[in-house]
Structures are given as structure tokens and as C-alpha cells.
């Protein structure tokens, strides 16, 4: 039934796709930040303990989900300031530029590219650490480029194999790409073996039959 299902894909830009489930999951990843002004009655919500009436004092460290940070961040009204997570910082970028293939992006991500692109939203000339994110983007592109060959080769050569080890270290975006490569290979091999010319029952019909059976059962 996969041909008749059109999920909204991730946006992978400055703006997420509103209805993309991947983007919604991505935007709830936490981001380190700091309160630039006191936030009254929010201690409980921001995980700072205390009762409902306690406020978050100015300058306290926070872990804020990306969607909330995006809403609160404003270059004029300084409510919070945001820092990029450490995998987007200089130290990790050196690792990426040495050999991007050795990095486990699933553990680091799993939405490494999408999240990194979103960090551009916090671009603020007053904050030199955030200004780095622009150069960060060059690194995303470089990371993607140097990992491309491996994704392509492993997706196009692994026929009828267990691919879980191959995709374990891939970011969600790369996993989707890997699946597409696998599908191309598998379809071609099926055709070559003559399986494509056999007519089989539509998956809709098969599922319908199952459901009926379940109804009889219950």
C-alpha cells in the first residue's frame, strides 16, 4: 500500500514542513541555552524544580526543546540565548572533517542534518558562538558528501542481506536515502529473476481478507 501513501517529508531547510512527522520529532530535541531575563512561574515547566509559582532566575542554564527555543528566541527582546549542542561545535567538526564515515550519526542525531539546519534560525551577530552555525552548514554539506559514497555502495550492493548493521550508524535522512537505493536494487533483481511478471493479489485485497478473518475470530 506504500504507493498510495504520501507522507509529508522533512523540510531540511530554515523552515520545517509543518505536517512532517519527522520534523515534529526533530524539533523536540533539546538545545542548551540560558535565560537572559527572569521567567516568572516557569520553573516547573522548564524542569528547574520547585512549585508552580517559582520563577527561573536570570542567567540560569536551561535545556529547551528546539520548537520552544525558536519561539522564545528574538534578537531584540532578549529572553533566552541559545548555544549549539556540542556535536555542532568546533571540536566535533574537526572529527567530521577528518573522516565523516567513522561518526555514528544515529547516536549523534538522529536528525543530524535537519537539526543542524534549524540552528541557523538562531543566527545572531552579537553572539559569536552562534555565528559559527553558518560555517557549520558548510560542514553538513561536506559530511553528507563524504558519506554519500558509502551509502550508495552499501545500498546498491547488499542484495538479500541483513542491512541492519549497515544502517545502524546512519542519520534518519540517510536511512531514507538508503531505503530508496535498496528499493531500486531489489526491484531490478526481482525483475531480472522474472518475479515481476507474476501477478499477485493486491495488498489491499490481502489485508481486507485478514481483517474479515479477525472479525470472525473475535
Amino acid at each position, binding site marked *: 500500500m506504500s504507493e498510495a501513501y504520501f507522507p509529508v517529508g522533512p523540510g531540511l531547510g530554515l523552515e520545517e514542513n509543518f505536517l512532517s512527522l519527522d520534523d515534529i520529532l526533530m524539533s523536540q530535541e533539546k538545545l542548551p541555552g540560558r535565560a537572559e531575563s527572569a521567567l516568572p512561574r516557569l520553573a516547573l515547566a522548564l524542569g528547574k524544580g520547585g512549585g508552580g509559582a517559582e520563577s527561573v532566575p536570570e542567567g540560569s542554564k536551561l535545556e529547551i526543546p528546539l520548537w520552544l527555543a525558536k519561539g522564545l528566541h528574538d534578537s531584540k527582546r532578549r529572553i533566552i540565548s541559545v548555544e549549539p549542542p556540542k556535536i555542532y561545535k568546533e571540536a566535533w567538526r574537526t572529527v567530521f572533517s577528518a573522516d565523516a564515515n567513522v561518526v555514528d550519526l544515529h547516536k549523534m542525531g538522529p536528525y543530524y542534518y535537519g537539526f543542524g539546519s534549524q540552528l*541557523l534560525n538562531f543566527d545572531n551577530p552579537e553572539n559569536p558562538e552562534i555565528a559559527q552555525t553558518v560555517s557549520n552548514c558548510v560542514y553538513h554539506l561536506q559530511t553528507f558528501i563524504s558519506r554519500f559514497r558509502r551509502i*550508495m555502495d552499501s545500498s546498491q550492493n547488499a542484495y538479500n542481506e541483513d542491512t541492519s548493521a549497515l544502517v545502524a550508524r546512519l542519520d534518519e535522512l540517510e536511512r531514507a536515502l538508503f531505503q530508496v537505493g535498496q528499493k531500486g536494487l531489489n526491484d531490478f533483481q526481482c525483475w531480472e529473476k522474472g518475479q515481476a511478471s507474476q501477478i499477485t493479489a493486491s495488498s489491499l485485497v490481502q489485508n481486507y481478507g485478514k481483517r474479515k478473518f479477525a472479525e470472525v475470530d473475535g
Partner: protein
Amino acid sequence: MEPAEVEFLAEKELVTIVPNFSLDRIHLIGGDLGPFNPGLPVEVPVWLAINLKQRQKCRLIPPEWMDVGKLEEIRDQERKEDTFTPMPSPYYMELTKLLLNYASDNIPRADEIRTLVKDTWDTRMAKLRLSADSFVRQQEAHAKLDNLTLMEINTTGTFLTQALDHMYKLRTNLQPGESAHSQDF
């Protein structure tokens, strides 16, 4: 697009058959075929040739290029060159598969032909991966692939276009003003 759909297009190619029945000229939407006379060669689309062959109404004459000597030459040429060489037919893979599956008794040295075509295919696919990699590395925006056949394009096409799409988005992120504008809807 699925390989079966590519095969559907390949079935429009013409092959020569020798029928063993008589039939007047038939008028089909895509053109007239025939007349069919026993023992006289006539050109028909592959889909009809296979159907007649399965009903044992004809003998199939393999295309000129489906010959061990010529295919060896093509394979060696393909290995020598860095770019893709022209193929004898835009549907060489599909025709080989169809004709060898349904009419291998009419094609001399069918097994060798199958191996040679498969070798050529593997060489070309390896080449395609190599050039895709250097294309991505140099961050090119366009490429010219004249002699690739539809089946080859179709096997890696979705993968390649999707990867390039991601790359384009990651690259345009660098010009925030521009890309923010294009996303404004």
C-alpha cells in the same frame, strides 16, 4: 517507475520473426503489421513476437547485435573507456532478458550472451556509481549522460535525485535570505 514498466516500453522495439502461418496485413493503432507468410521473415514488436512464440506460431531471429563476437567487442570497449559507450540497443538489457527467457532455442550460444550482457551491465553500473560519486564530490549542478539506457537510469535514478535534492537544500541554507523567501507560502 518500476522495471516492469521499463520492460513495457522495451516491448515496443521491433524484432524479426519467421511465422509458420498465413495472415493478412493487420491494422493496429500503432501501425500496420504483416502480411504474415510461412517461412518469410517479418518485423513485429517484441510483445507480439513473444506471444506468437509461446503459441508456437513462429521462430525468432535474434537481433544483429545479439552475437557473442559483437558483445565481446562492446564489453571490452566499455571497460576501456571512462565514459559510457553507445549500446547496440536502447533496451539491450530488457531485450536480452525477454528473448533469452522465451526464445533461447532460437538464439545461438544463449548462455554466453547472457554472461556477456551481464558483464557489460555490471561494468556500466560500477562506472555510474563512480561518476555519481565524483559528481557529488565536486558539487556539480548538472551532468550529461548520453549513452545511459532507461533501465540503468531507472535503477539508481530515484536514489541519485533524492541525494542531490538533499545536497541542494543543505547548500542553499547558506543563503538564509534567499531560501527563506522561497519557503514563504
